[in-house]
């Protein structure tokens, strides 16, 4: 028996050992604490084929990533939305992050139907395991914005608490199993 993949995936791109590059995984960790039902949560390091596997065929893929800007406003959040990524459609990558992965996805027809990218401006991308204050302060807003995108596509969550780990990602292991 194979379950259909959830219609929505949230992909946190980044390395938690590179300071503000950990903002993607940090947002995902927050989402995990109150897990949205029917959504896959995936941490990725930006390698394109992994992104393709994660988002292909989904109704909505939300990607959270760090970006270094000049001039810089650490903690500022940029939202980019690519609706209607139908096979064969060409979307301009101007104004979007992860250009290589998206271009490859378009050529191979492995795009999500909709892609939303939240790019958070970083202060520091050196070695370290903590987010800078400005970026840490942005995490709750990105979490809320992500939940709003999910609600927009899936509708409001049911009244039951969304703690069922089996609802989304089927490949999780816990130490207890």
């Amino acid at each position: 028996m194979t379950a259909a993949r959830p219609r929505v995936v949230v992909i946190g791109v980044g390395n938690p050992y590179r300071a503000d590059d950990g903002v993607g995984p940090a947002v995902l960790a927050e989402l995990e604490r109150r897990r949205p039902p029917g959504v896959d949560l995936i941490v990725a390091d930006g390698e394109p084929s992994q992104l393709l596997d994660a988002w292909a065929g989904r109704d909505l893929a939300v990607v959270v990533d760090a970006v270094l800007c000049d001039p810089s406003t650490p903690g500022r959040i940029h939202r980019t939305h690519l609706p209607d990524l139908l096979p064969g459609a060409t979307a301009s990558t101007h104004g979007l992050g992860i250009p290589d992965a998206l271009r490859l996805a378009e050529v191979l027809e492995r795009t999500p139907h909709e892609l939303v990218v939240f790019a958070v401006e970083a202060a520091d991308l050196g070695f370290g395991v903590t987010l800078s204050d400005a970026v840490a302060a942005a995490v709750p807003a990105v979490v809320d914005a992500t939940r709003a995108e999910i609600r927009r596509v899936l509708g409001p969550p049911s009244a039951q608490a969304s703690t069922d780990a089996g609802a989304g990602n089927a490949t999780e292991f816990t130490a207890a199993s």
Partner: protein
Amino acid sequence: MSHRNRQLQVSSLARVEGEGALRVVIADGQVQSAELQIYEPPRFFEAFLRGRQYSEVIDITSRICGICPVAYQTSAWLAIEQACGVVADERITALRRLLYCGEWISSHALHIYLLHAPDFLGYPDAIALAANHRDLVERGLRLKQAGNAILEAIGGRAIHPVNTRLGGFHRAPTRSELAPLAERLRAALDDALATVEWVAGFPFPDVQVPIDLLAVYHPDHYAIESGRIRSTTGLDIPADQFSDHVVEHQVARSTALHATLDGGRYLTGPLARYSLNFNQLSPLARQAAQRAGLGPTCRNPFQSIVVRAVETVYAVEEALRLIADYVRPDPAAIIVPPRAGVGHGASEAPRGLLYHRYELEADGRIASATIVPPTSQNQAAIEADLRDVVAANLSLDDSALTALCEQTIRNYDPCISCAAHFLHVSVE
């Protein structure tokens, strides 16, 4: 790995380039030096691990490399289990080897199709290759996904395995859970053989590097997850003696380190494994190699893509064999009681020999950590190659020279971000 190419261009925002730098100094038409900075040795992790509990090492080291986390976990648990005086049983070792096969398949397929093949076929990147030869890139992604399927089934996730731990696994799969995996791998074997045939036809310059080669060796099979260390200079030592023979020197005026093997330059990776352990490849893999024009040794860095394809055939077959012979480990992990001591571990990451050493306090805290990745070890060999390539191509303009240097570096499949274009070349 700790570096990641991130190109984000949003309206007025700046582009973040890949983190690779090559500084070439030319005087009187001669290349004086070619200093390469493509990989940051994991000094941060070595320092970060000090004071942590030995049980945390497996999770932390898996973060050093996004493409080869199993390699980092393996060299780590070999070293820590040795320090604690325990040895995992045959069933756990076999499951570890199966997991590692998944990583070899995934990493080699990614490198061959998305990173390296475009160079030989005249495409700027895999996207251009896919636009003209979609079926070929699809085959590569299928192969990579077969590797990922192993990593997910046994490691719990395609990146940063969560099911692994000191002593073994949190949970071992059942034979019936591995059956669908075997189905996928049988199909993948066809794709792997087709890959060897495909890359065998690429145009290869006739280059032979007369350099010492270093790899892990195991008496029972082509070494992947454990073994002794052997070289073409006749070395045959346990991992414990690695630092007696491999020494890292700081290079003057650079943050790079050059490693030497008993004072000489050397190379680790597919060419080394292949040349030292050829007879231990499966008959099918050896046959594929021979049909592809390889002899029992290979010292042409450009043909490393063929060797990786041959190793992919081997890894798929080996995974099938391990699944066929699989007996579920019970318990899924051995107990690893902490004790004061030092341990060493060497395993063959897709890119080459990966060495870890840990010193433990009596309560299991890490007193010191030493991690020597294959790309660090190959630094000197890659720079020597680049010096030769630049010297022979000084008439090229900057962008053509940069592309040629990137292709040369890709022969070594360095542990660097997966971007097609990652290099800044500055010529003085």
